[in-house]
C-alpha cells in the first residue's frame, strides 16, 4: 500500500472510531460485545477435555504413576541425606565449576535454608528440579537436533515452542492436573513442558553456528556422519547448549515454584504462597528468600559450567588424577556423613537452633506502614486517580470531586477537546501526519478509557498497524486472533490485562530507558545496576510480589509495581547495550564535528540505538505479560485472574481460553515490535540481532 493511501485509511479509521464512540449510547454492542453473540467455546473445550480424560485418562494416570517412582526416590534420598553432606557437596560443586567466591556464596545460601528451618521444603523443591531438568534437557536436545537436521521438523517444533513459552505457566497446570491427577507429578510435568524450549533453541542455534570450515575439517579427517555429529558438531556447540541448560534450569525451577499453587507438594513455593494468603508477610519473605537464594545458586553454577574454559590437559594423565575431583567429592561426603553419625546435629538440624525472625519483620513492616501511612496512601491514590483510572475508564468517568477535586463540566470537556485538537494539529505539522494520528488516538483513549473503547475500532487499529509494520499476513493474523478474544467472550478481561500491562510497560520502559542511558554514560551506574538486574531476572516471579505486598497490600497498584519491577530489567539492559554498541567510528566522527556530550547522546547515539531499544521494549512487554498472571494473585481483574479462576474451579475451558488470550496478546505485541525493530535496523544497515 502506498504511504498516501495508508494515511487516508488511518484518518478514516480515526473518524470512524470517534463516530462509534458517539453512537455507543444507541448501539451498545460496539462497546460491550453482547453475551448472546458469544460462541460457546468454553463449553466445547470442556466437553473435549472431558472426552479426552475419559478415554486417555487411565493412560496418563499410569504414566504419572511411573514418573512418580524416580521422583519419590530422589525426594526420599535428598530428605535422608544429612543436611551437612548436601551442604558440603553443593559447596564443593560450586568451587569446582567456578571458584572460591561462588563456593562461599553457595555455602552461606544453603546454610540459610538450614538455619531458617526450611530444609525439608527446600529439598522437596530441589528434588523436582533434579528430575525435571535432565528430562527437559534430554527432550530439548533431541528435538533441537531433529529440528537442525530436518526443516520439516523445525516448521512444526518452532511454533509449538513459541506457544508453550507464551501461554502463561498457570494455564498449563490445568490440563495437566485434569489428565495426570493431583500431586507433585503435575508440577514435574508442567516444569518439563515449560523448561525444555530453551534447550531446543540453544541446541539448534549452537549446531547451526558451528563454522563450515570446522565441519569440512571433520569431513576431511574422514568422519562418518555419526562421528561428525557426536565428535565435531556437538562438542563445538557445547557452550551454546550449556547456556540452554542454564535457561532450562531456571525455567524448570520457576515452574516448580508456580506449580505449588495447586498444593500437596509441601515445598518451598507452597510455603510462600500459603503464608502470603494468610497475610503473614514476614514468613512469606523469609521463605521467598530461600527461593531467591536457590535460584541464584542454580543460575550461577550452571552458568559457570557453561562458560568454563577447558582445563589445560595433562598428557598421559593417570586415572586417579583424571577423576580426582570426583574422588575428593566422594571423600568429603563420606567424611561429613561420618561426622554426622557422631554429632546428630549435623544430620538433623535441631529445632531449638533455628532462627526465624518473621515476627520482627512483621513488626518492622507494620511500624513502617503505620508511620508512613499518609505518604503510602498519597502515592497510591495519586497513581490510581491520575494515571491508572484515566487509562482504564477515561477522564470522562474518572474526573469527579471525589477523585480530582472538581466536576468535569461541559466547558472543561470542550477545553480538553480544544487543547487536544491544537496538540494534534501542531504534532501533525511538525512531526508528520502519522504522529498526528497517533496523538489523536491517544487523546481519545485518555478521554474515554481503554475499556470503554469500541472493540471493532481496536481490532481495526491493531490490524492496520500490523499491515503497516509487517504486511498483510500479520494483519490477517492479528485481526483473526483478536476476533477470537471477542467471540469467546473474554474481551473485557483482555482489555483489563492490556490496560494494566500497558501502563506497567510504558512506565517501566520510560524508567528503564532512562536508567539505561545513565548506565551507558556512567560506568559507576552500570556497575551498580548490573547485579540488581541479574538478581531480578533470576528471581522466580512469586518472590518479587512479596515486598510490594508488604507495603501496599492487595490491589491493582501492588500488581502494577510488581510487574514494573520485573519488566524494567530488559528495558535497562537493551538500552545500555544498544547505546554502548554504537560503532566507535560514528562517535569519533560526531566528536570531531564538535558535538557536545548531550548532542552526541541525543542526535547520534539514541537514533542509532533505537532499534535495539525497541527489542528491549519487546522484551519488556513479554516480561510484563509473564508477570501479569502471577500478579493476579494479589488482585487484578484481567485474563490472569481468569486463568486463576479456571485453575481454582478446575474449569478447563475458562482457564485455557484466558491462557490463550494472553498468549495472543503476547504474540501480537511481540510480532509488531520485532517487525518494527527489524525494519528499522535494516534501514540503518545495522546487523539484526
Amino acid at each position: 500500500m502506498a504511504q498516501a493511501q495508508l494515511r487516508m485509511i488511518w484518518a478514516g479509521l480515526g473518524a470512524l472510531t470517534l463516530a462509534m464512540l458517539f453512537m455507543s449510547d444507541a448501539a451498545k454492542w460496539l462497546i460491550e460485545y453482547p453475551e448472546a453473540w458469544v460462541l460457546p467455546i468454553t463449553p466445547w473445550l470442556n466437553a473435549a477435555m472431558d472426552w479426552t480424560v475419559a478415554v486417555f485418562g487411565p493412560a496418563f494416570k499410569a504414566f504419572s504413576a511411573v514418573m512418580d517412582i524416580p521422583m519419590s526416590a530422589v525426594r526420599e534420598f535428598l530428605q535422608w541425606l544429612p543436611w551437612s553432606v548436601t551442604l558440603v557437596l553443593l559447596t564443593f560443586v560450586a568451587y569446582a565449576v567456578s571458584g572460591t567466591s561462588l563456593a562461599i556464596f553457595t555455602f552461606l545460601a544453603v546454610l540459610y535454608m538450614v538455619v531458617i528451618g526450611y530444609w525439608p521444603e527446600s529439598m522437596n523443591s530441589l528434588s523436582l528440579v533434579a528430575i525435571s531438568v535432565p528430562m527437559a534437557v534430554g527432550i530439548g536436545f533431541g528435538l533441537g537436533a531433529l529440528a537442525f537436521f530436518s526443516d520439516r521438523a523445525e516448521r512444526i517444533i518452532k511454533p509449538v515452542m513459541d506457544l508453550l513459552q507464551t501461554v502463561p505457566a498457570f494455564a498449563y497446570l490445568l490440563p495437566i492436573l485434569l489428565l495426570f491427577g493431583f500431586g507433585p507429578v503435575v508440577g514435574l510435568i508442567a516444569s518439563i513442558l515449560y523448561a525444555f524450549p530453551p534447550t531446543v533453541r540453544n541446541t539448534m542455534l549452537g549446531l547451526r553456528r558451528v563454522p563450515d570450515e570446522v565441519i569440512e575439517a571433520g569431513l576431511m579427517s574422514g568422519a562418518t556422519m555419526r562421528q561428525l555429529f557426536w565428535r565435531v558438531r556437538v562438542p563445538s556447540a557445547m557452550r551454546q547448549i550449556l547456556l540452554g541448560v542454564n535457561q532450562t534450569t531456571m525455567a524448570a525451577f520457576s515452574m516448580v515454584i508456580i506449580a505449588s499453587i495447586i498444593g500437596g507438594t509441601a515445598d518451598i513455593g507452597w510455603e510462600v504462597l500459603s503464608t502470603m494468603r494468610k497475610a503473614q508477610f514476614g514468613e512469606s519473605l523469609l521463605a521467598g528468600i530461600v527461593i531467591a537464594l536457590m535460584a541464584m545458586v542454580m543460575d550461577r553454577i550452571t552458568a559457570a559450567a557453561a562458560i568454563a574454559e577447558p582445563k589445560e590437559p595433562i598428557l598421559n594423565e593417570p586415572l586417579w588424577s583424571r577423576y580426582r575431583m570426583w574422588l575428593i567429592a566422594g571423600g568429603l561426603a563420606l567424611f561429613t556423613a561420618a561426622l554426622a553419625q557422631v554429632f546428630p546435629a549435623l544430620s538433623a538440624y535441631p529445632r531449638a537452633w533455628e532462627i526465624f525472625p518473621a515476627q520482627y519483620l512483621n513488626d518492622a513492616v507494620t511500624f513502617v506502614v503505620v508511620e508512613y501511612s499518609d505518604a503510602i496512601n498519597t502515592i497510591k491514590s495519586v497513581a490510581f486517580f491520575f494515571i491508572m483510572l484515566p487509562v482504564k475508564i477515561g477522564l470522562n468517568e474518572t474526573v469527579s470531586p471525589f477523585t480530582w477535586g472538581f466536576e468535569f463540566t461541559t466547558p472543561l470537556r470542550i477545553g480538553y477537546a480544544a487543547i487536544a485538537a491544537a496538540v494534534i494539529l501542531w504534532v501533525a505539522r511538525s512531526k508528520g501526519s502519522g504522529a498526528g494520528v497517533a496523538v489523536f488516538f491517544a487523546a481519545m483513549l485518555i478521554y474515554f478509557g481503554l475499556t470503554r473503547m469500541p472493540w471493532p475500532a481496536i481490532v481495526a487499529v491493531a490490524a492496520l498497524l500490523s499491515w503497516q509494520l509487517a504486511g498483510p499476513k500479520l494483519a490477517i493474523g492479528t485481526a483473526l486472533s483478536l476476533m477470537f478474544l471477542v467471540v469467546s467472550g473474554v474481551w473485557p478481561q483482555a482489555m483489563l490485562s492490556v490496560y494494566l500491562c500497558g501502563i506497567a510497560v510504558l512506565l517501566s520502559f520510560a524508567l528503564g530507558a532512562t536508567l539505561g542511558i545513565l548506565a551507558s554514560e556512567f560506568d559507576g551506574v552500570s556497575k551498580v545496576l548490573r547485579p540488581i538486574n541479574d538478581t531480578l531476572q533470576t528471581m522466580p516471579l512469586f518472590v518479587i510480589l512479596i515486598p510490594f505486598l508488604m507495603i501496599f497490600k492487595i490491589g491493582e497498584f501492588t500488581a502494577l509495581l510488581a510487574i514494573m519491577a520485573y519488566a524494567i530489567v530488559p528495558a535497562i539492559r537493551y538500552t545500555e547495550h544498544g547505546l554502548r554498541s554504537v560503532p566507535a567510528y560514528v562517535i569519533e566522527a560526531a566528536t570531531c564535528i564538535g558535538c557536545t556530550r548531550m548532542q552526541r547522546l541525543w542526535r547520534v547515539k539514541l537514533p542509532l540505538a533505537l532499534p535495539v531499544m525497541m527489542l528491549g521494549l519487546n522484551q519488556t512487554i513479554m516480561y510484563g505479560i509473564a508477570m501479569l498472571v502471577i500478579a493476579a494473585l494479589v488482585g487484578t481483574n484481567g485474563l490472569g485472574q481468569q486463568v486463576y479462576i479456571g485453575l481454582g474451579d478446575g474449569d478447563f475451558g475458562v482457564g485455557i481460553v484466558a491462557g490463550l488470550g494472553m498468549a495472543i496478546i503476547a504474540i501480537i505485541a511481540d510480532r509488531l515490535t520485532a517487525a518494527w525493530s527489524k525494519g528499522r535496523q535494516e534501514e540503518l544497515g545495522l546487523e539484526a540481532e
Partner: protein
Amino acid sequence: MENGLGEVKLSCRNIWKVYAGENAPYFKSDVGSAATPELCTRMRADGAIPAAADVSFDVHVGEIFVIMGLSGSGKSTVVRCLSRLIEATHGEILLDGEDLLKKSDKDLIDIRRHKMGMVFQNFGLMPHLSVWDNIAFPLSLQGLGKSEQIEKVRRVIELVGLEGRETSYPKQLSGGQQQRVGIARSLAIEPELWFLDEPFSALDPLIRRQMQDEFLRIQTTLQKSIVFITHDFLEALRIADRMMIMRDGQVVQMGKPSDLIVNPADDYVAEFTEEVPMVRVLKALDVLDREAQAGGDMPERECDCSVEELLPLLAQSKDGVKAMRDGETMGVVTATSVIAALAHQDADRGPDRASAMAAGAA
C-alpha cells in the same frame, strides 16, 4: 623441476559446478558442442550459477599446483569438488586413475582417512580440543591405537615446530600457530594428496611470508602432490611449480609462473603480472650479457637465481657474475644487461599504462 613432471596423481576433467540449475539438461549434449563461455551465459540467463565451468587440469606426483583467482572466481569451489566436500555437477576426477566421483560414501571416507589432507583458510580447528587432540583427531576417528597416535602426532608436531604447545587450546594461539596446527593435522595421516585452501590469507604479511618458507621447506622433505589455492598472485609465483588462473568459474590461463609473466593470455592476467617486481621474476638466465666474456675471478651463481639476488654481487663485481648450471658456465650477467632487460620489460608495459592513464583522465 624443469620439464620432469612426474606421473599424474590427480586429474580433473571438465569439472562443472552449477548452482540452482542442477536439474536443467545442460550436460546431455551441450558440453563439447557449445563453447564454455556461451554455455555459461546461457546458464546465467536461466538463473543458474556456474561456479566452476569446464575446469580441467592434472596434478603430478610431488608437484605444487596453484589455483589463483580473486574472490568469487570459483577456486574454492574447485578444491571442494576435488575433495567432494561439494559434489561436482558434471565431469570426472581421477585419483590414481580411479574416478573419485563414483566412490561410495564408505570408500570416500576411507580415501579421506588415508590419502587426502586439507588445510583451511580460517584453520577449521576444533575449539574444544587441545593442540594435541586436534592433530590426533583424524587418527582417533580411524580408531588407531594410542601408541601409534602418539608416535605420529609427535612427528608432525616436530615437523611444524609446535613443540611445547601441545596442551594449549586453539584460542590461546596466534593465527600463525593455529595454522601450524591445521597443517600438522592435515599431515598426521601422511596423505599423498594435500589440499591447501588459502592457508595463509588470514595471516599478517610478515607471518605469511614466514609460513610460505616453512611450507616450501616441509614440501622439500615430504614431496606431496599439492593443490594450493590463493588469491595472492605473488604468493602463487613464489610457491607454484605450475599455476592456473581462474575468473568467473572459468580457466583463464595455465602454465609455469614465468610463462604467465612472459606471455599473459589476456589483459586480465596482464593486470596481475603488472605489479610483479621484475627483479624477482627474471632469472639470471633471462638477462645474460651476450657480449661479456666469462672471467676466472668472477663470482658464480646458479642460473635460476633471481636478479634480485644478483644485484648486491653486481654492485661489487664490475665485470659481471657467472651463471652456472651443473658446474657449467651458461653465460655472464652484467649490470648493463640487467638494466637493459628491466628497461625492456618496462617499455613493454609502457604504452598500456599510458593509455590507461589517458582513459582515467578523460
